[in-house]
């Protein structure tokens, strides 16, 4: 971040080749944890891709009619069914939480402990709201008779894929929320400033952890955008 020496390295493809050919590190100045998170996210991308590609394959080949998402996911607002109303709010909340997360990273590196902590807390609350609304959506659909193995609107695979993919994504969000709360507590307590050692890992805490957390959180948001596009808009 503040390492000015990195600016002197060559950029572009030449820089890439130089980095690959150099000793010690391939990604110059990149923290181990950060590199690990990127590669984990690549692996996780493959998981979500497999889910979404399977969904597309089944949707293309299934014999029964696929339910019309605008109707299934509509919400009655003052007596008028508004398509995708709840999903729009959910998406808005989640994307906003990405914004607060980015700010938290900024304030973290500025050593602004209070501001950073509050922003992490805001992010966590955004995530919690998202999960809450998803629970509401699930219960509404379950109330209408949608199950993983059947649904009243058409192809049973609709329910299967809906619950599986949103459930898997929701699990990601929930895990993120738990870690955000832990991180908020650590920030307020000043662990990152003091370099306190982790309870399990015994490694020193550092503000870079917030950036790594942020990477995960932005990824979860990005995946949601794809789920939104493929499940609700298609």
């Amino acid at each position, binding site marked *: 971040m503040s390492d000015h020496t990195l600016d002197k390295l060559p950029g572009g493809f030449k820089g890439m080749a130089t980095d*690959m050919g150099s*000793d010690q590190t391939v990604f110059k100045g990149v923290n181990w944890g950060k590199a690990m998170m990127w*590669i984990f996210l690549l692996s996780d991308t493959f998981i979500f891709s497999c889910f979404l590609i399977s969904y597309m394959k089944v949707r293309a080949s299934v014999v029964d009619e696929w339910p019309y998402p605008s109707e299934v996911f509509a919400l009655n607002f003052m007596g008028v069914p508004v398509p995708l109303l709840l999903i729009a709010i959910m998406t808005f909340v989640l994307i906003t939480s990405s914004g607060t997360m980015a700010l938290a990273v900024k304030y973290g590196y500025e050593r602004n402990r209070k501001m950073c902590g509050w922003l992490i807390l805001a992010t966590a609350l955004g995530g919690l709201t998202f999960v809450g609304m998803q629970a509401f959506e699930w219960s509404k659909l379950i109330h209408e008779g949608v199950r993983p193995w059947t649904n009243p609107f058409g192809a049973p*695979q609709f329910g299967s894929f809906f619950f599986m993919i949103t459930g*898997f994504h929701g699990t990601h969000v929930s895990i993120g929320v738990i870690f955000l709360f832990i991180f908020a507590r650590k920030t307020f307590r000043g662990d990152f400033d003091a370099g306190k050692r982790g309870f399990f*890992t015994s490694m020193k805490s550092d503000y870079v952890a917030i950036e790594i957390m942020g990477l995960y959180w932005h990824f979860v948001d990005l995946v949601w955008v794809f789920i939104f596009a493929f499940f609700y808009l298609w």
Partner: protein
Amino acid sequence: MSDDFYKNKTSIEAQPSRTISDSSGSVSDIDYVKPAEVSDQDLYHGHSFITKWIFCQDAKVIGIQYTLTAVFTGIIGLILSWLMRLQLGFPELVPFITAEHYYQFVTMHGMIMVVYFLTALFLGGFGNYLIPLMTGARDMVFPYVNMVSYWMFFVAVLVLMASFFVPGGPTGSGWTLYPPQAILEGTPGSGAGIILMLVSLALFVVGFTMGGLNYVITILQARTRGMTLMRMPLTVWGIFTATVLALLAFPALFVSVIMMSLDRILGTSFFMPTILQAGEILEYGGGSPVLFQHLFWFFGHPEVYIVALPAFGIVSDLISVHSRKNIFGYRMMVWAIVAIGALSFFVWAHHMYVSGMNPWFGFFFATTTLIIAVPTALKVYNWVLTLWRGNIRMTTVMLFCLGFIVTFVNGGITGIFLGNVIVDIPLSDTYFVVAHFHMVMGIAPLMVIFGAIYHWFPLVTGRLLDEKLGKWHFWFSFLGAYSIYFPMHYLGFIGVPRRYFEMYDSPYITSAVGLNQSITIAALIVGLSQFIFIFNIVKSLRMGKPAGKNPWKANSLEWQTPNVPPAHGNWGDKLPVVYRWPYDFNVPGAKEDYIPQTTPPSEVLEAKVEKT
């Protein structure tokens, strides 16, 4: 965690980190190596028995734990193969081998050997032990996560083993677990067995991901000074590429496991078409069994290379050290490993020529499959050219390497038969396929594993394995493996189908009876001869010849540690500095026939080394 937890940390003082552009040392100095970019690693040192040997964060101990667990499951896989062979050679000789049990043995043998034995041994075992040592790191970058990785694997093995004891026994659907039959009642173990198998695989993937991230980041970001990617031993390249493959291929397995468990437990129809069971229409309908095959083989084919690439890498190093010659075409070897890894993601449907997919698919996948033969053949030529006019030491290690080359070429050539759609169709689901994949991903990697254990046992324990017993072990294993799998090609040509419990009522197969019996006898002997190996290990642990430092006169870093066996933290208080690749053997002008990677140029001024 107790109070002394914080006291146990970091007896190795972290050295101050210097920044990248900090150019201390003049460029004209021939021994100049760029200063450290990363500060020295903080390590947790275990002091009690539990933190040192059980919940240990030292990658070397974790590697040994992985190895022992994998070998334990491998022995179970071996015993299962005996039971299968007994049935095939001498039907009804053993009364408890019923058709159901036979299918369960086939399934568990396949899954154990591919995933829980070979993958865990190469990546978890050799990867953990060798990566930090060979790249000059103190440990894996996240030792705690690494420890959790092993224990996840351990739990996965426990769950897998538990399936032997549940009502209905383990699943008998074949290691490919194809739906719909894997979860229908006619298949043995369709109750608890298949569920435990799926849970165990999911745990394995999670555990492996933790380890795999460690291996990749250690190699990319934690090498020592002077260690460029193109100075890494090929072992590290093989394990690295295999780990990347695993991180990208296991997701497909994970997803198919989740979807199949939902089909089995919740009654969804991802993979289940409308289907009759015992005359009744089931609730399932509209799913696609071929989708599972695509997901499974998108994992399954890279899996072959996850096993093969570390073997390629390790064998290259062993051949080079034991023929005292640099590896022929190092850069080409690296690119071949990477190319094979990349191509392995575009060949999966060659396992599905008879699945009913679009024939144009077969055309595409046959082409990509045959393209893989190019980098693979390149590697074989390079191994042979490394041996050519080398100063070959006929150690047990070298024998196993030669055994590897022969079995690998054999299995590779039959792979070219099976890669062509038109040749594959009559051969598919016959013993020709069984012979092919056992040769290429069973025996060949095993030869490397044995060679590697004979090679690195002195590093791990400080004692040499007995050479005489080792040679007996080699000849039993090598000739035995040939007498098992070579006749199987013929069985395949006459059309003996694989996975059949018994076939003696079909008149055309009676000609196979004698062959099947001899194969079974050979299998029993080969299996038993592995106990020579186990005996050798147990004996040498206590009474083996002390190896001293660097008994093979190897160049790579793992032999240059201050202590043998290496202590926690690997390098004492100073990290090694690397000046060359690990293949400087018999360099013209040098006094010794080897120059370790840590030897600075000023010490070997008269040697005509290649610039690496």
